[in-house]
């Protein structure tokens, strides 16, 4: 009986509240500006042309953007050229022809899309570049400060490989693709540190093409030439595991410091725990994606602003991750982002 009474009471309360909510109406409880915002984003079309969707950073970006798209009513289409530059050019041309409201692009190098991006802007399409810049600046760039990244990584090696206790002053730069934006700008940062630390000796500067086996081969060869090598710096944690494997095979894990950068996925943390890598400068792809998502909504909310009329840049955070902090949010898993 008491249960029945309680139920009745609860039911009546709920009904009253529901009625009250309906009476007060939408205009009073709506957050200021929200409906205008939703109106601006609704039905807008965004096309993303990545380098390859198989990379951890890309997956994190798209998961975050899809969440925003689903919540706020715009569409996000991914045109994945899967690492093929020619397919990428076709994807860009196709995207421009469709006249979407916004194109997001991750450039394979500084030149390939440079003219296409100008065309897109001339056609009135807003363009957001992520992490890899083109020679053409567009409405917005969200991604790494690559010069700072080069400075941080070589600076880390300078800490280990200068001074009286250093095993030697010999360091290696395992580049990615020489014409890639990350590569070009990191080199500027590296050169600054090398200039400030003249005793540092850059004994090898070879691109591993973002491939772990190539990184392994170069490292193995260089270690034969310079058995007293002190440090290696690279450009992507998934490639530098190959350098780590070569160093481990030579039994020099205590001698050679391996520094690289990465999107902050759990595989990178695993590589630190396995001793293949020492330090990852983690640029946290999910946070990058959130910054880019703010840019997406900004650009979509300003349909009257002329494409390319205002150019902005946003650098994401960089966290130094080593054995002591390779946990938690520094090591994301894709499923946790969904």
């Amino acid at each position, binding site marked *: 009986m008491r249960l029945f009474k309680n139920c009745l009471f609860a039911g009546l309360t709920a009904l009253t509240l529901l009625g009250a909510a309906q009476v007060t109406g939408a205009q009073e409880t709506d957050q200021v500006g929200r409906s205008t915002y939703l109106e601006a984003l609704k039905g807008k079309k965004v096309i993303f042309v990545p380098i390859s969707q198989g990379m951890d950073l890309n997956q994190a970006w798209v998961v975050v953007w899809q969440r925003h798209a689903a919540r706020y009513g715009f569409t996000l289409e991914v045109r994945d050229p899967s690492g093929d530059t020619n397919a990428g050019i076709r994807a860009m041309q196709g995207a421009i022809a469709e006249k979407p409201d916004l194109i997001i692009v991750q450039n394979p190098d500084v030149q390939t899309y440079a003219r296409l991006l100008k065309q897109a802007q001339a056609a009135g399409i807003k363009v957001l570049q992520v992490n890899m810049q083109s020679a053409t600046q567009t409405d917005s760039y969200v991604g790494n400060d690559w010069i700072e990244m080069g400075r941080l990584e070589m600076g880390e090696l300078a800490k280990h490989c200068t001074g009286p206790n250093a095993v030697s002053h010999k360091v290696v730069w395992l580049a990615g693709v020489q014409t890639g934006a990350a590569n070009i700008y990191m080199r500027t940062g590296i050169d600054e540190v090398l200039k400030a630390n003249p005793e540092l000796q850059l004994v090898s500067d070879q691109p591993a093409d973002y491939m772990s086996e190539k*990184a392994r081969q170069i490292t193995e060869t260089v270690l034969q030439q310079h058995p007293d090598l002190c440090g290696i710096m690279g450009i992507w944690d998934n490639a530098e595991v190959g350098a780590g494997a070569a160093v*481990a095979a030579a039994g020099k894990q205590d001698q050679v410091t391996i520094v690289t950068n990465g999107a902050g996925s759990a595989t990178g943390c695993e590589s630190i725990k396995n001793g293949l890598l020492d330090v990852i400068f983690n640029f946290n792809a999910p946070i990058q994606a959130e910054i880019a998502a703010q840019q997406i909504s900004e650009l979509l909310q300003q349909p009257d602003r002329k494409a390319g009329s205002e150019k902005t840049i946003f650098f994401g955070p960089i966290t130094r991750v080593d054995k002591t902090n390779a946990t938690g949010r520094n090591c994301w898993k894709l499923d946790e982002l969904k």
Partner: protein
Amino acid sequence: MAGSGKSDSARPGIKMSQELVVVAISAVLFVVFSATLNNFLSQGNILAILKNVSILGTLAVGMGFIVVGRGIDLTMVAVMVVGVAFSIWISTWGVDFTLAIIFGAVLVAAIGLFTGIMVAVAEIPPIFATLAIASSVYGSGRIVFASDVLYAPSDIGWLKFVGNGTILGIPMSVIIFAAVAALMGFFLKKTRFGRLVYATGDNPNAARTTGLPTRPIIVTQYVISALIAYTAGIIMLGLVTGIDTRLYNSSLIYDVLLVVVLGGIGLSGGQGGVRNVIVGTILVGILTNGMTILNFSYTSQNLIKSVILLGALAIDAIINPRDEQTSQSGDI
């Protein structure tokens, strides 16, 4: 067999010249690098050269086997990365990793069987059949596996041994390459099946008219080359703990062809053997090692490699000229 006989009668005295040219170039490079580069001649560096070409060499043995039978297998890199990635992928469901590797082998053999049937029975020219199949295999892999890079579990003892183990100081990767090469050499030269491969490659129509089972021979060849590609993938998995499926987009498959043609296996089939592959592999190994030590840029490394391939093809055309018989029975 008929091939070597032919060149004997047509141009006495220059038989195997291309192989000798490559051996000579390798020897010159070896001497120059030894004299000019520190530590080039050290035992460690020689082993590093061999270790660095073990994957390339293993793939080239498979490719050489196909080219001898007048085919070409452009699926090798796709099969290698997708086969190994497939094994890792099913092991993430909780399947024992070693068992998963066996499942991977079954898948790879099935792909080889399909390729072989397309070439031998549907009679699609191998260069087109394998190009298309390579693309489909990689594409299917991309749809199934979310990531480009897949990592093997870190606690597999035998896999660690493949990557870092040595026997009598020789790295396991080199031993596996040597074993694959030795088996293939034996198979080609000492078994009846091997001789039939040469006969098919030398003149498929004649072989068929004579009553040789050319279709089953061709199908078997593609199954074996797929399994050899898979073996190369396992070496890679051992060496770098993961497999990067983007290798499909790299120039690796052309490097494999470079090694085969450079070593002197004529693209018109029926000639050459494992020795040619080894010679070609060692030249590429010495060249890459020297250029890496000299810190040559990636672009100039590729340029030098391409010029050498072009040179090797030109020499091949002069030494093994197309005669009426070969041009009538077609080329790849």
